[in-house]
């Protein structure tokens, strides 16, 4: 199976059920909205070590935000409802409320929700005020540049995490350039994020380790330096570099669409081979076959 000259491996990406939400951050300028979004999505590449996965979905023009100021849309994912509430309170409290001129709004419509502003309000030390606007409660928390406005609750929904593509290339420079073109194409898709640095991860992992304390370790099957050592190397002879793109999405369809877009972009960029990471299908709730995305 091929797209152009790129070989598509007959395998699947194994994705997991997660809980996701969308956060709309606005500010006086797009630069300050982005500053808050970057802070909020920092250290959020993988639930394995960061307790959540988060990323910037897209920037928003003033006429697309609740308060008609420039904004940024952020998606955040965790493994369960309890932890998503905790992560939102931590990250909105420490990264958005602290950022000059920002406000923070729920950006999702779903029946389930977690209380966020209703927790952060206590920072107001009794001076906080609430407003109900269009049947929605918001909290006004006094801060040193005015007020921090935040929605009382944020909607959450079941989501899909861990969609992925492995871009297998001839050399590091070419693979990196292809990965950059691929992530640029994928970011156009709504409802998804690419949580790793600029969307690309080099330290792909497998489940387990020879060390009992580790739940994940390096994916030796795709490490070029271990081609002669690993018993399970999956690299073609001419491949010298592998970069992975991980996709988290609010829906399975969005993840699939992003993967499909990414495969076309990577092929157009001349990547040698496209594969995907899985654990034999025994862990994840979703199997996304690459061959189903080719046509």
């Amino acid at each position: 199976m091929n797209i152009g000259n790129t070989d598509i491996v007959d395998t699947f990406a194994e994705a997991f059920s997660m809980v996701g939400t969308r956060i709309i951050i606005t500010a006086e300028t797009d630069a300050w909205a982005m500053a808050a979004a970057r802070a909020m999505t920092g250290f959020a590449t993988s639930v394995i070590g960061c307790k959540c996965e988060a990323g910037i979905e897209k920037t928003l023009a003033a006429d697309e935000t609740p308060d008609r100021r420039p904004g940024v849309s952020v998606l955040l994912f965790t493994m369960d409802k309890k932890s998503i509430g905790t992560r939102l309170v931590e990250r909105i409290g420490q990264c958005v409320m602290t950022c000059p001129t920002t406000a923070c709004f729920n950006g999702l419509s779903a029946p389930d929700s977690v209380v966020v502003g209703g927790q952060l309000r206590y920072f107001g030390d009794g001076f906080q005020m609430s407003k109900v606007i269009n049947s929605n409660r918001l909290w006004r928390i006094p801060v040193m540049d005015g007020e921090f406005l935040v929605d009382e609750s944020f909607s959450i929904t079941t989501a899909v995490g861990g969609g992925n593509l492995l871009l297998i290339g001839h050399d590091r420079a070419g693979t990196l350039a292809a990965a950059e073109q691929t992530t640029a194409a994928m970011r156009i898709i709504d409802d998804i994020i690419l949580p790793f640095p600029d969307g690309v991860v080099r330290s792909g992992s497998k489940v387990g380790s020879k060390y009992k304390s580790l739940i994940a370790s390096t994916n030796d099957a795709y490490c070029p330096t271990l081609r002669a050592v690993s018993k399970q190397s999956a690299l073609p002879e001419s491949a010298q570099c592998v970069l992975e793109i991980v996709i988290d999405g609010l829906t399975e369809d969005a993840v699939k669409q992003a993967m499909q877009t990414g495969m076309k972009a990577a092929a157009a960029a001349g990547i040698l081979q496209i594969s995907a990471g899985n654990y034999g299908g025994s862990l994840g709730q979703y199997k996304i076959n690459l061959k189903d995305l080719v046509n």
Partner: protein
Amino acid sequence: MSLKLTLHTSPDVPLEAPCLNPDTLAGMTADIVAAQKVMHGNQAASVGDFFKVAGKANGTLELEGDLSRVKYIGAGMQSGILNVTGNVGQHLGAGMSGGDIRVDGDAGDWVAPEMRGGRVTITGNAGHLVGGAPRGSAIGMLGGEIIIHGNVRNETGHAMRNGLIAVGGTSGDFTGVNMLAGTIIVLGDMGNRSGAGMQRGSIVSMNPAEMLPTFTHACVYRPEFLRLLLLHIRSAGLPVNDDHIEGAYDRWCGDVVEVNRGEILLLNGA
């Protein structure tokens, strides 16, 4: 076809007709609606004595005529739509908890006293005590929205505890008097003694207003929550312009004779 009642005989004295709401008349035929009891002064009467009834109730009730002597229209309403073409009397939407009332005309005193939810829209003017507490009661409206396109008279939002009152024109004296919480927005001028005795809540005006000496100036700033509120009432048809949304506001805090947690925000023209 919705249920339509057209006034054919003007009442000589106030007519109390709390039955004129979509919930009470739900599922009734025209004959049954016409037989509903109303009070004409201290005399019992029926709807048919004053209204021509046509159609069948389907969740929307249409009233037509000069109803300025008809009181308690829409009282206790929980759902549905009530459209009035003409003026209405006192206590429109008293105690309503849901639904949508729209009056293409003026309204008398006490629009939606003790309202809990839903929305009332008046395209003309309204009288005293919009959303206010009835005499003998300590609490006015508890929720919902009252949108007045024209002017209102005195004591708008008297003792209101929650909800939104938005006025496109001017308000009389004692706007938000004894207010407990909630929001009043007046796009035009406010009269004297706004916020007297208020505990919490927000009173907003786009024009300068004389502050009581029991209010203290805090700062000039751009409150983000107000952008949302102004966009919301603009979507309801009130003449909010971009200067109102983008502008800075003087924040006054009071009333110190109470708990001093209320605020009056005045658009800063400087």
